[in-house]
């Protein structure tokens, strides 16, 4: 079964750094793009960007360019989302999702990681 499993909830203070993870199971991790999606509390889904584990090719949404960094470690089939200096407005649920076949759609999705940034 193809599955993405994300790291657990995080509580951080403004200015702190954070890396969350997304581990793929049941498929060739290097061969499928991984997308990151934000959902702020009570709000809709926002596409943050996408990374190709095969060569680390990365595309960021203009809204998130320079605010976060995507990376991958193929050896452990894991994608990462990193912040260098968190803000309260970074609070939300972050989902990873795999590109579905050759379509520009996303399936499956990880279970989500709740990030809370508060002083």
């Amino acid at each position, binding site marked *: 079964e193809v599955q993405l499993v994300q790291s657990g909830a995080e509580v951080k203070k403004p200015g702190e750094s954070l890396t969350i993870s997304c581990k793929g199971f049941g498929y060739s991790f290097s061969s499928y793009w991984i*997308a990151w*999606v934000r959902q702020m509390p009570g709000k*809709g*889904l*926002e*596409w943050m*960007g*996408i990374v190709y584990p095969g060569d680390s090719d990365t*595309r*960021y*949404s*203009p*809204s998130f360019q320079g605010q976060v960094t995507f990376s991958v470690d193929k050896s452990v089939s894991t994608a990462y989302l990193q912040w260098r200096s968190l803000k309260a407005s970074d609070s939300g649920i972050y*989902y990873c*999702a795999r590109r*579905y076949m050759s*379509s*520009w*759609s*996303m*399936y499956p*999705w*990880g*279970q*989500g990681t709740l990030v809370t940034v508060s002083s």
Partner: protein
Amino acid sequence: QSALTQPASVSGSPGHSVTISCTGTSSDVGGYDYVSWYQQHPAKAPQLIIYDVDKRPSGVSNRFSASKSDNTASLTISGLQADDEADYYCTSYTNRRTLVFGGGTKLTVL
């Protein structure tokens, strides 16, 4: 990049049909056959229900159908059931080689 435009809410009675629209531009919805739709129940991860404008992944009910005309895509849910009550999001590929979501539509089954 602006989000695609969806109605904030729609409603329908059990057994009836509802349609949710998703309006973009020629740079996204109108320019590519890469419109997808997702269903999200409260406190759950989104689930893909339509990809490439009108295709259903294996296991998705044929009560879900979709289409596109010019810069507007549409999702129709027929034979409404209580479990269809959820938030629905469209996405489209864009000319910036990125994806963009719609603002989401809350479906209420009366």
